[in-house]
């Protein structure tokens, strides 16, 4: 978000690239790397070489969050006299007025950073240091021959102290990478250069971190992590849109763009719904339809009057998709049983407030966070959120507000839960809750808008999807409604900022197919 502020203030920059690598840089600076903002030249620090220097706004934002400089300086990006140059500049006693501490490498010309990292890594080996060198490169950048010169050299010198992260967002300045200069099979290429290769979902922090820790332990070979990312992730009219490779959004759009990042609406199909056909097929259909995650209802026959899948089943399903698994444990004694679901590689694990004490929940949340899994807590329609939850909001990523009594799919939505959601949303935000409210039960495309307006951002959809004769179409319809809900919110925000016409013009191609439902056909027409 700091990146968007900076780019908008500057009037130029590379917003797409900043977003595709946000989770990667965050994982490095906030968790994985050994570094010290108080002592940036600490000799045993890990190095980060940002070869993909056009992601500068995101890089600066990360450095600022990590503590290298005050965030209010972001607004000086690319301005005359700023320390935040268009492409980052190495910080040294020689260059203090055009750089901020923590920047090791002056980037800007593509394809050079990996070679520089090879030099740093050679010096570390020579000095018998145990530090690590991380390098971020782009996929467009990988067109450069020098990348492959450096790849050969790193393998020759057995530089196991190098980990490259390839931001595979598949877009470069002129268009899609596979049209401009095909890089696939990119993983095979690196393997052929004698590198250890890994592949991750580039916006999944847990997976990124696990893999970063893993490559640190590899011996005698350099490692590359191919991070499959989405350019402009989070901002719809920038996402996967080459137009936004090097162009800034207008400054007055910033508040609306920030609103978009916080208010996306996710669809989570619940695969226990519908015909008792096989789960794998349901997951594949959900993915093809554009679902954001897979909701897994785990019932033990004790806490609820039904039995569904267990951890072993989830383990088998894990290889079917790379979509996040949103596991909802409707079971007794979750504190004893949660390990199995951690092993099964769920991405979100939610337990019921009715099934654990404060101490038990904290033990569960701690374990989940250590494993890079998002903790969630759920409440049934008659249950009030326990007061102790308010003391631990920073540990909670998801709050499921049940909109039916759990146990069976196909029940009617309970309208009184809307008020409960809205009330909780307001109260929790006031206490600093940064996670998502998830609504579960009886939600269909007719109902979605009001649930969204009540504050829920994750919509579990069971019968509405798998009870339909056209599963694919049903998910598309839900996703469509989710988009309409978001656009409606953003239009309202732009109206209050008195930039409505301008916003509609910037986002035309997203709004055109939704115009009828949003009631803005005439306005759209007027912007032509």
């Amino acid at each position, binding site marked *: 978000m700091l990146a968007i502020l900076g780019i908008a203030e500057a009037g130029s920059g590379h917003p797409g690239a900043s977003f595709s690598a946000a989770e990667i840089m965050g994982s490095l600076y906030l968790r994985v790397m050994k570094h010290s903002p108080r002592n940036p030249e600490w000799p045993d620090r890990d190095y980060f070489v940002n070869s993909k220097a056009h992601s500068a706004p995101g890089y600066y934002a990360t450095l600022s969050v990590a503590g290298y400089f005050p965030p209010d300086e972001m607004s000086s990006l690319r301005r005359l006299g700023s320390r935040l140059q268009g492409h980052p500049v190495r910080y040294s006693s020689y260059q203090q007025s055009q750089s901020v501490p923590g920047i*090791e490498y002056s980037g800007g010309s593509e394809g050079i950073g990996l070679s*520089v990292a090879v*030099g740093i890594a050679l010096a570390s080996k020579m000095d018998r240091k145990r530090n690590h060198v991380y390098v971020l490169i782009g996929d467009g950048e990988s067109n450069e021959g020098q990348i492959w*010169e*450096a790849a050969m*050299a790193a393998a020759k010198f057995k530089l196991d102290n190098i980990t490259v992260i390839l931001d595979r967002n598949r877009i470069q300045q002129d268009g899609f990478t596979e049209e401009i200069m095909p890089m696939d099979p990119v993983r095979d290429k690196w393997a052929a250069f004698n590198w250890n290769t890994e592949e991750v979902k580039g916006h999944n922090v847990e997976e990124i971190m696990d893999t970063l820790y893993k490559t640190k332990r590899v011996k005698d070979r350099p490692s590359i992590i191919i991070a499959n990312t989405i350019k402009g992730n989070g901002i719809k009219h920038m996402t996967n849109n080459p137009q936004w490779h090097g162009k800034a959004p207008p400054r007055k759009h910033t508040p609306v763009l920030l609103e978009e990042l916080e208010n996306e609406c996710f669809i989570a199909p619940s695969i226990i719904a519908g015909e008792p056909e096989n789960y794998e097929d349901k997951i594949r259909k959900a993915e093809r339809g554009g679902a954001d995650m897979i909701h897994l209802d785990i019932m033990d026959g004790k806490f609820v009057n039904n039995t569904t899948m267990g951890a072993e089943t989830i383990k088998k399903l894990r290889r079917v998709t790379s979509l996040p698994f949103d596991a909802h444990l409707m079971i007794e004694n979750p504190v004893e049983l949660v390990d199995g679901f951690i092993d099964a590689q769920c991405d979100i694990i939610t337990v019921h407030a009715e099934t654990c004490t404060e101490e038990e929940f904290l033990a569960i949340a701690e374990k989940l966070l250590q494993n890079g899994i998002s903790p969630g807590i759920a409440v049934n329609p008659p249950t009030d959120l326990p007061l102790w939850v308010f003391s631990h909001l920073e540990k909670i990523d998801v709050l499921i507000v049940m909109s039916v009594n759990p146990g069976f799919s196909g029940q009617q939505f309970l309208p009184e839960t809307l008020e409960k959601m809205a009330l909780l949303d307001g109260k929790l935000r006031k206490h600093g809750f940064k996670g998502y409210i998830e609504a579960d039960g009886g939600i269909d495309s007719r109902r979605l808008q009001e649930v969204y307006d009540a504050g829920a951002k994750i919509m579990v959809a069971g019968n509405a999807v798998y009870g339909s004769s056209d599963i694919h179409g049903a998910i598309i319809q839900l996703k469509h409604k989710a988009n309409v809900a978001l656009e409606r919110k953003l239009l309202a925000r732009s109206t209050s900022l008195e930039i409505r016409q301008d916003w509609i013009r910037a986002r035309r191609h997203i709004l055109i197919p939704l115009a009828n439902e949003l009631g803005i056909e005439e306005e759209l027409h007027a912007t032509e």
Partner: protein
Amino acid sequence: MQLSNLRKTGDMRGAYGEALVELGNENPNLVCVGADTTESLKTKKFGDKYPDRLFNLGIAEANLVSVAAGLAIAGKVVFASTYAAFLPGRCLDQIRNAICYPNLNVKLVVSHAGLTVGADGASHQQNEDFSVMRSIPNMKVLAPADALAAQQLTKLVAKTPGPFYMRLARPSSEILYSESIRFALGKANVLSEGNDATIIACGLMVQRSLEAARLLKEQEGISCRVIDMFCIKPIDHDLVYDAAKKTGIIVTAEEHNVIGGLGSAVTESCCERYPVPVKRVGVKDTFGESARDDEIEDLLVKYGLTSYDIAKSVIDSRRKALV
């Protein structure tokens, strides 16, 4: 006097290698990187002595230059060497952005520049390097005139922080200096005094300039000041000013295109402070060609880079000045 009268010859590359071995002993942080030319550039001598401090990166110059930058970031003093055609010629981007912009401690030392490369021909006869290198901020540009100067300047650049470009000649050449000579950055050496004209030269053309001065003295009675401008950047502005003011005529001599090199640097300096006629002896904006080692002198004759060409330029300038 600074000049030797022993008439010995020496090889700049050999002197460079020996200086590196000596420096490597004094400074454990000094490292070399090479690109499949370590034998030719004599950095192999250093590698034989300190095997874990010479990194051969193969025929990959862009990588060579950037790896050197990385080593410098991690605190090393780095000497990166290969042929001139492949460093400034090929790697301007990396030299500019990875080394000069962050002002890193990397020394680019090249050989095989100028026409005297000989047999390899125009592809290798880099005559544009001074021009390109001196226009990058933070870069300093040197061209020693003999093996002794090469050795001394190697030590000077090792001890002076920041990026350097130093060009060594391929052929062996006469030793001009005596052992006691010391060099200072931005301070040129006056090798002979004279009042009628000044010849400012660098690299192998210094010896030819001394020869031209001798010819002019003996045959025409013209006395020339001869300056070894081994440091093309930063150039010795005070000495150029003094030469212009006291001798009124300047001739430059370099194994480089007349565009952008020493001749241009002297002209720029002269014009701004005390304009006098400057004639530039050098490669006349053209490509060279192959010549075997025993034909090098004929090659220089063909392209107008001999002591006679320098002497003739002095005479022409004086004639014009007298008109």
